[in-house]
């Protein structure tokens, strides 16, 4: 039975990966993922700085961009696009029934689709992290780069960013896949999650831990404090809590994803085809 399930999961992944990677409608996900690389490359080409202070600034800037733009916006919306499309997009295209008419358990369909979304998102977003890394740091002197990467913390920083990006895809991906299965209009849960994750800065310490972003921030190698705005009352509410150990954060995100995917799989058994209402 496992062999059959594996073959079926692979078949689903082959079908869905082609759709996710090469669909014209998914072009914006590539743009979103690679968007930070453009100014970084321009910075490398146009503003050639020398010296350790600029290098240090670039390290801080990368950490800030990763934490406040890449995780919160690029990967968040990218996962909305990729994972909600897996089920809800098929409903809109009126083609989900082809999966449901095959001799495949609904749970296997869901796992196959989740894995294909995961492979696509991890490839796109982790790939983009590498491109950004190269774009931002390539103009610095080779000796400085070598000492940062091989004798300093550079390599472990890069690995941490890659792990954080992959974990973001797992965490947000599972949540948005479930939203696509459970909700006719998954924009509603997406907007609620966006608001919740955006409000992370002002949430009480306990509630901060019920957001994906808190655990992702814990994996990031450099902690950047939440930025304060112009509103003085709101600024009083902004504070940071100590990050969790990276291993605990990864484990928690995996547990969250596992729980959400299992729940979505159970609910997928009850999916009915009703394209008229899409």
């Amino acid at each position, binding site marked *: 039975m496992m062999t059959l399930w594996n073959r079926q999961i692979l078949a689903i992944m082959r079908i869905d990966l082609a759709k996710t990677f090469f669909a014209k409608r998914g072009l914006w996900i590539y743009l979103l993922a690679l968007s930070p690389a453009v100014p970084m490359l321009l910075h490398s080409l146009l503003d050639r700085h020398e010296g350790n202070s600029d290098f240090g600034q670039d390290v801080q*800037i990368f950490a800030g961009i990763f934490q406040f*733009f890449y995780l919160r916006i690029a990967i968040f919306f990218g996962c909305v696009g990729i994972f909600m499309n897996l089920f809800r997009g098929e409903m809109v295209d009126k083609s989900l029934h082809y999966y449901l008419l095959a001799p495949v358990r609904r749970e296997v369909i869901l796992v196959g689709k989740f894995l294909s979304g995961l492979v696509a998102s991890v490839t796109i977003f982790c790939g983009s992290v590498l491109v950004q890394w190269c774009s931002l740091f390539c103009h610095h002197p080779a000796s400085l780069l070598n000492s940062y990467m091989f004798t300093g913390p550079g390599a472990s920083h890069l690995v941490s960013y890659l792990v954080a990006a992959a974990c973001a895809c797992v965490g947000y991906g599972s949540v948005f896949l479930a939203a696509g299965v459970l909700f006719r209009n998954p924009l509603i849960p997406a907007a609620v999650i966006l608001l919740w994750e955006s409000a992370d800065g002002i949430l009480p310490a306990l509630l901060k831990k019920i957001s994906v972003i808190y655990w992702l921030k814990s994996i990031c190698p450099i902690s950047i404090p939440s930025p304060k705005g112009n*509103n003085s009352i709101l600024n009083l509410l902004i504070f940071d809590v100590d990050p969790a150990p990276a291993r605990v954060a990864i484990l928690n995100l995996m547990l969250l994803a596992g729980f959400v995917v299992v729940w979505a799989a159970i609910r997928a058994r009850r999916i009915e085809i009703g394209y008229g209402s899409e």
Partner: protein
Amino acid sequence: MAVYKRTYKGYSGPLTSPLWRFTVLQRYAFKAIFKSRFLLIGYVACFFVPLLAICFLYLNQNASLLAMVGQKPGFLKIDAGWFHNFLTAQAVLAGVLTAFVGPGLVAPDLANGALPVYLSRPFSRFEYILGKGLVLGSLIASITLFPLLTLFGIQSSLVGYQWFEKNLYIGGGILFSCLTIMVVFILLGLSMSAFVRWRIVAGALVLAVFAAGKGFGAVINGVMRTSNGYYLDLQYLLSTIATDLFRQTPEDPPISPLSAWAAVITFCVLLLLLINRKLRVCEVAG
């Protein structure tokens, strides 16, 4: 001999004037929008802060009540900043409303081939866009322009004509800020739904334009050590315009109000071009 059965009788009742025909689209639009219980609850919730603000304005001028807590009427300053903050809060809600309502106005017509049906009537593309825009515009106005003008009127009536005369510019600021927000949000909502045709993704794109614009602008500012990234931050641009209209511009703003106006107008022109390109009756099937 041919026999012609003349059984068909065309409509011979009164017609809506061609000048106001675009308003026809509104007749059933609201009913369709508020069929969603979630949207109805969300829309009603948008009036929570204005109602609270009305109570606050009343209490702030109620001498007997304030005397009980040892304060004089007007102990809290109601000025342009107060109205600006209020506008900011309502504008955020208007943005969310646009993301949910805007795409539902156009995307289904395009996805289900209803646009040719509209345009095969004496109804132009311009009237279609105007009609659909008016639906969204009236909803946005009902949670931004009207509550703000009402609050301004209440404050004027409570404090007196002198306050009104001295702060007339606030009224102007409310009017022009809200109109700018309405135009931008209407064009954004309509263009995104015409662009992707899938209601849900169009809604996500509306939110993404705000979030990604802000984020990407910050990336540019951070990496390039510049403030030009603000030109991509629609929320910041609208806020800069409103700040200027409320006469609250700081001494050395990252971008001038004039530049913000120019960027917003450029943005609107781009959205109009997108609408013009996507809202067509004919298309080539791929």
